[in-house]
């Protein structure tokens, strides 16, 4: 970590400048939407713009105060993405619809929660104490949508929603964070154990069977999500998250091999046994046949219309408000990438995807820089999860892979997704703060109550050997 030899700089003013640029992008997009629909600069526009700007600047202020060494690029990127998403959702609102304001409300809530995470958590290493609580929380979150009474039932073929009063919520979005915390905590405690034991086969060192417990757990969670919630996207996301984290924890490519073999086997069996998986894949391969196109539900109309939209956009796009993204079902949520592709063109969509690339790159950067294994694993896992989620969504919309129901982080309409991804941003900012700041030699304050959770016990590893 030679890059830390220079004196650490907070770079908060850089962040402020970038943030103003990001706000200009988001608010500018919203303004263009208004211009094209002959309602620019109405009270709604000023209200929305000023709220977003105030929230972003408050967030910036909190970082100055609480995490002044945090990465200065992350917040502006996320504000820009969120702003573009708001503009597109606002643009797609039919008269009388209010998805745009609803999305703004959720943005403000999500930013407030992310600020609270930074404010109250102070140091990400504290999360390590919640390793097994996180596991329990993940299990709870994943089971909730299946519990009668709370479950919102099957929506669009998947059972991933719960009903809280008038709102629906997708607990799986938050589960990816709690799962990442669990994996990071567990693996950072047990990595030595997993690393040292095992049998060497050719160039690969395979783990002992008894050390595969967490791998099997993760596999079961993923397959369970696939079977019971019928959610292929989340299943891929959780398992990918786990494989990357165990690979980073052990540096053993054998884990990736085992993991991919397990997912391939599980996926193959699932495709044989469960009609919804088979239908997805068949529909993906035969999207342009009349049979699949006209099928309802589960037909390919959505993706085919999305492709038409993107083709219509071409290189430079139709311009915001000039295209017809409203012809695509779920244009403001699942298919928002197609909507952006149509109106902003290849160039605009590349810019959006590049922002994601920059975002997860800064996350990996934080993982490299931070000094504790837990922080490295957590930052790496969360960053990879964002990247994988983008890949699954955009790959699905462009028919590179089968379309799944995952949301596009920060862009798609939906409160749970916004909330979860802003919490991820809060965590990444906090980890980057410790990564970029001066070396903190003070030990963590002891946890209140018992510490007998067996988390930080290198001596135990020796005992096992």
């Amino acid at each position, binding site marked *: 970590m030679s890059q830390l030899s220079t004196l650490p700089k907070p770079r908060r003013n850089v962040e402020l400048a970038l943030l103003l640029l990001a706000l200009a992008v988001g608010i500018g997009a919203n303004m263009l939407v208004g211009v094209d629909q002959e309602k620019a600069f109405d009270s709604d526009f000023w209200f929305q713009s000023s709220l977003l700007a105030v929230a972003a600047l408050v967030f910036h202020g909190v970082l100055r105060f609480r995490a002044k060494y945090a990465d200065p690029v992350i917040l502006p990127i996320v504000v820009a993405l969120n702003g573009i998403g708001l503009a597109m959702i606002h643009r797609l609102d039919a*008269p009388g619809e209010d998805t745009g304001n609803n999305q703004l409300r959720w943005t403000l809530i999500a930013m407030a929660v992310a600020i609270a995470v930074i404010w109250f958590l102070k140091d990400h290493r504290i999360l390590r104490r919640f390793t097994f609580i996180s596991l329990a929380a993940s299990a709870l979150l994943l089971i909730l949508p299946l519990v009668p009474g709370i479950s919102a039932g099957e929506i669009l073929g998947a059972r991933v929603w719960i009903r809280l009063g008038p709102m629906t919520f997708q607990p799986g979005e938050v589960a990816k964070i709690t799962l990442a915390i669990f994996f990071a905590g567990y693996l950072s405690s047990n990595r030595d154990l997993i690393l040292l034991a095992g049998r060497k086969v050719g160039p690969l060192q395979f783990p002992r069977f008894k050390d595969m417990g967490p791998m099997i757990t993760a596999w079961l969670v993923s397959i369970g999500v696939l079977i019971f919630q019928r959610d292929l996207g989340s299943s891929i996301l959780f398992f990918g998250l786990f494989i990357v984290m165990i690979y980073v924890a052990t540096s053993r490519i054998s884990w990736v091999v085992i993991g991919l073999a397990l997912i391939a086997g599980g996926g193959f069996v699932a495709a044989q046994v469960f009609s919804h998986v088979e239908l997805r894949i068949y529909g993906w391969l035969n999207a342009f046949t009349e049979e699949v*196109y006209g099928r309802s539900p589960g037909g390919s109309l959505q993706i085919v219309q999305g492709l038409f939209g993107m083709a219509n956009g*071409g*290189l430079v796009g139709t311009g915001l408000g000039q295209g017809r993204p409203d012809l695509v079902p779920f244009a403001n949520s699942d298919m928002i990438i197609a909507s952006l592709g149509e109106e902003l063109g290849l160039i605009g969509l590349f810019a959006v995807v590049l922002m994601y690339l920059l975002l997860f790159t800064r996350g990996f950067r934080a993982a490299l820089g931070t000094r504790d294994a837990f922080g490295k694993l957590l930052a790496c896992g969360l960053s990879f999860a964002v990247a994988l989620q983008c890949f699954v969504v955009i790959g699905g919309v462009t028919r590179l892979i089968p379309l799944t129901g995952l949301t596009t982080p920060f862009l798609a309409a939906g409160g749970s997704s916004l909330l979860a991804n802003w919490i991820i941003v809060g965590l990444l900012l906090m980890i980057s703060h410790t990564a970029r700041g001066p070396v903190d030699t003070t030990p963590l304050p002891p946890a209140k109550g018992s510490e007998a959770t067996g988390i930080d016990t290198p001596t135990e590893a020796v005992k096992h050997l």
Partner: protein
Amino acid sequence: MNQAIRHSWVAAVAMFALIFGAISYVQVIGADELKANPWNQRAVLQSFCNDRGAIVVGGSPVAESVESGSETCAFQRTYPQPELYAGITGYFSQNFGATGLEQSMGGELAGNSDQLFLDRVGQLFLGNQPKGASVELTIDPEIQQLAYSLIPDGQRGSIVVTNPKTGAILAMVSKPSYDPNLVATQDLAAAAASMNELVKVPGINLNPNVSGPTGELLAPGSVFKLVDTAAALASGKYNKDSELPNPAELPFEGIQYRLPNYAGGNCYTRDTASFAFALQQSCNTPFASIALDLGRDAIADQAEKFGFGQDMGDQLKLDYASGNTFPDDLDGPGLAQSVIGQKDVRATPLQVAMMTAAIANDGVQMQPNLIKTLRSPDLRVIDEPQPKQLRTSTTPAIANQITEWMVSAVSEGIANRAGVPGVQVAGKTGTAELGNGTNNSWFTGFAPANNPQVGVTIVMEGVDINTGAQLTSPNAKRIFEAVLNK
């Protein structure tokens, strides 16, 4: 650990490289193919606010673009007689694309067709707004109005009036119909709300390939006996003097089911019947016997020759139902029921009209035609479709023989209420039982029998016997009179 983190980053970047490739393919490399896909309505929709050509009937427009007064969308498509012509014009909607002639003649109406090339070059230099061609229809507005009024409100039914010699369609109506203005409006929320309501109406003629005279596949009932008769005469096994078995019930080996003659008619008075009597009284068992004798293929072939489930040519310019309508695998009872137009055999009202037109036109079926002229914006005629033969359905001798029997069905048989004083009318009725106590009641025929000027096909769906009888033959008579007195 840091090395593994870097590798993970490389893996993530590799995924993004794939995404960049996929986006490039969809938006640039493969974009032309996607734009040319027939499901892609965006090209139609981009011209939504332009001035399109009118669809004209008898000199007045039934679909036209008028200035909307809005700055963002200069023209609004309007339909002055909406319900009357909805099944033909279709709609032109920003939300839902186009149907009917608005869709099939879209290129001409928008001014993009090759025939308008010179006009487009002119517009390029003069800087005029592009304006589309106007389409004048073969429809006679008075007959169209009369036919529409003959279907009572709340009654499902279709009427097709043709000129058998040219294939020109003089009227084509169905109920329930709808107001295309509701879905063509620039108020997209209102259009969506209207569409939500319209799709709930059973039998509404929103899509010409599944509903209305061109699309709705109905059990044809006894009008299908004209197919059986043609097949019998064409086989050589039967001639005009043949005596056909006419038992009150036709038994089948090994099963309980017996095919009966209609209990209310005069069929029971004879054990054998001539073709003339069997057609006049529409007895079932003689035709079932013919079919069992000739076999399924002979009947199905004749049905195809009359155009059932076949191509309708390229002059109709409306979508229509297609595909096999005479079932493939039939046992004895199944065949016997099918050849009297029951069970699974299906036909659209337009197909029945075309069968009758072929009989009227000495066995030659003309292409059904809706388009009279196509005119450029300066009213120059740029296309005028000429009558074209579609196929030969049967020989002139057989056609004339069937005509003779159809005349007797009107003069002496159960179609007598279609008779017009002083004119020889040929006709055939049909009643297909729907199994719930109601019927599809049919009439198909033409007049004058010796020099056919007009063919009329009427179907009323889901009616009792008496209502059906009142709404078919007497209404046919009124249409015959209206056309012939012109």
